[in-house]
């Protein structure tokens, strides 16, 4: 079976100015959303306490309203109460953002108070509390991790390819991360540690795509030179197109399975991966290559000897 019976011949380069324009717009919109609206951070990044509990059958038909009354009584009127799973299971997630240092006591008092009010012991599924210091540290580390991986990839691509390839690769990654994070900000989806991990995976993944196309560009440049760089890039993207679509599609199968049956804990992560892989595939084709063409046209491109004997490099300046 084959995706494309004949080799495709789409003029990607011609579409690039439009696509880059669109990318600039969505990046700016994402940044605006992040700047204005911010993120719906989980307690991982903001500090706070989250209790997940189940009220036993003996407590009767407990609902959010009942819990809200009890919590208001206990001095936590602002706690968010969300039902988890089927109504018959009586499972709830209670979160209190922003934390005080005595969070341990807070959860202990709340649980005691609830047990008293309900007349029976609730089943504690999980208790998580993060202090304000840890929260801000995790936020800082998260930003650091993402920036570090950008820098690492910049250096690696520079080292393995020509420098003209590196900025495009990294811009594409910045684009992917900003867009995915922007959607999380815009829709107010909860941003937790797992979503951050997903952003790093997206960086690795999108890079993977970019390298495949860059590799092909370099290989084609070696035989055809750079006088027709646009057509070389088109050729490279077209000949790797079925691979690009296949790999994204296959990885998305795994991600979709995770979204459908993977349970609540990793839902945010799966969502981020789903968006990131889509946008990563797009940015590889349109953003990374566009920047690379522009830089190579402006500053020249040295042509390496054909693979696999790539050690001997001849420097032929063009344009």
């Amino acid at each position: 079976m084959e995706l494309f019976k004949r080799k495709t011949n789409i003029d990607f380069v011609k579409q690039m100015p439009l696509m880059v324009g669109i990318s600039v717009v969505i990046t700016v919109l994402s940044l605006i959303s992040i700047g204005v609206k911010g993120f719906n951070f989980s307690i991982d990044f903001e500090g706070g306490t989250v209790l997940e509990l189940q009220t036993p059958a003996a407590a009767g038909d407990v609902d959010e309203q009942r819990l809200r009354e009890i919590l208001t009584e206990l001095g936590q009127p602002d706690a968010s109460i969300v039902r988890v799973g089927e109504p018959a299971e009586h499972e709830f997630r209670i979160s209190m953002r922003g934390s005080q240092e005595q969070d341990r006591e807070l959860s202990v008092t709340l649980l005691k108070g609830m047990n008293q009010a309900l007349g029976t012991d609730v089943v504690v599924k999980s208790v998580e509390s993060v202090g304000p210091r840890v929260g801000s540290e995790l936020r800082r580390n998260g930003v650091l991790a993402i920036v570090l991986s950008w820098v690492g990839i910049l250096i690696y691509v520079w080292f393995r390819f020509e420098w003209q390839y590196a900025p495009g690769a990294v811009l594409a990654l910045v684009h992917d991360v900003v867009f995915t994070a922007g959607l999380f900000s815009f829709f107010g989806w909860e941003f937790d540690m797992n979503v951050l991990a997903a952003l790093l995976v997206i960086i690795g993944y999108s890079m993977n795509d970019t390298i495949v196309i860059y590799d092909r560009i370099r290989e084609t440049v070696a035989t055809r030179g750079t006088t027709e760089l646009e057509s070389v890039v088109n050729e490279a993207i077209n000949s790797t197109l079925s691979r690009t679509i296949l790999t994204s599609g296959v990885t998305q199968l795994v991600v979709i399975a995770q979204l459908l049956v993977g349970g609540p804990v990793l839902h945010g992560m799966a969502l981020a991966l789903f968006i990131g892989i889509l946008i990563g595939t797009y940015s590889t084709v349109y953003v990374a290559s566009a920047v690379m063409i522009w830089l190579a046209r402006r500053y020249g491109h040295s042509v390496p000897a054909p693979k696999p004997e790539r050690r001997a490099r001849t420097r032929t300046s063009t344009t």
Partner: protein
Amino acid sequence: MSLRGRWILIAVVTVTMTYLSLPSFFSDEDRASHWWLRQDGMTLGLDLQGGIHWLLRIDTDAAVQRELEKVASGVSDSAEEGKVALASSVVKDGALTLRGDLPGLRKILEESAGESVDVEEQDGALVAKLRERWKRDAVERGAATSLEVLRKRVDGLGVREPLIVPQGHGRILVQMPGVKDREQAGEVLKTTTFLEFKLVLDSAPSQELLEAKLPNGVPEDQMIVLSQTRGGKESEALLVPKKAVLMGDLLEDARMDFDRRNRPIITFQWDSEGARIFRDFTGSHIGQRLAAIIDGKVITAPVIQSKIGRRGEITGDFTREEASSTAIQLRSGALPIPLVLEEERTIGPSLGADSIRDGVRASILGAGLVFLFMAIYYSVTGVFVNLALVVNVLMILGLMSATKATMTLPGIAGVVLTVGMAVDSNVIICERIREELRAGKNAKSSISLGYSRSFWTIFDSHVTALLSAAILIMIGRGPVQGFGVTLFIGLLASMFTALVVTRAFMDSYYGPNPERLRI
């Protein structure tokens, strides 16, 4: 390497990895009863097996306070010896303020603690502050001692394979897998508790009455403590100095016992230094009352009848359990400095089981879809790729078991995700082979060109993905770190399976001179 050599390598890897990963699929009892199973399976993260995770921080202010109190007590001893006038000595807000014969006191300070404090004169008083380096030292020492104490306590709880390690400056990470009872575990932390003995300066039946006795308020170096009965009603208010005569850190042993009337008591024994101080003090204060204070609460405040040496006992209004847990805490040594609980994650066993179920279900569905797709899309070659993916998963599980890495819920997702990435390498190769075929190459050279031309692409894309995984391992924590480890190992395995395993299948299936490829 010859084809035969490659098959031997593949066989060895597969068998080893199966052997290493197998224990993870069996229960502890099965592992013990089957000789062919290794004892060590994969370690499950707290998010999967349930348990308690704490990140504790040494309270820096308290550490500084303790350090300055030591300096203050040294100064007052020397001042007494050298007949230097010391009007008052107060440790407050990270500074020791001394009043009296300032030149004399300054000399004493410089002699006894010149290295550790900066001394200034302010408003007719000497103000000593701990130097930065000494503050850091105090925190480091506090963390080191606390770590030892916590180890003993957690062991006392009977936790299997707890993890108690320093985490950066002045922080301690505690992980107690399988612990369900949060309140009981909290006792370990309550060990921020210490035992102090203080001389009773004055007393009254209630705090109000005691305050009424003090027209000028409570002096700066003194404080009021309450003794409480079990009902929680205060029964006496005592005025005591802030500085203790002795603290629990000099205890050698503490046990629960019963007195003649069969009430629970705590018996204790000092080390030699503690015994000396205790003997001197009790000898010179016969007839006065000495309060034993645990956790800021007066347990008992008997009148000193005679000189007491190494051994003593505390009779209080405890239950048996209280006496026992207090004794354990005293025995394992008091925590030198209060610990602040910065982060807690308690995962109940049922939630962990739910997570395993969800993770495994998503993995099976995801992997199933991938296998199905590959077999349909690449026919026979797709089946080879699938077999290689199975080897890939075995390698991840085997390597994780062998390196004692921790499998977390995101880690399970990571395993399937690397299956997705392993597919990528194979797709790159297969698409390349198809391309070469289209370009008119024969079957044999198409395979060999497909592999050789894809090698660097696969290598580069793996290195960058490994970079992201390495950053996750370095910066992530807990489940996310586990995710990074899984990805890292998975990527290594994926290079091997794509370049070696699938290739061996193809070479064997098509033989040296294939006519047509089923790809």
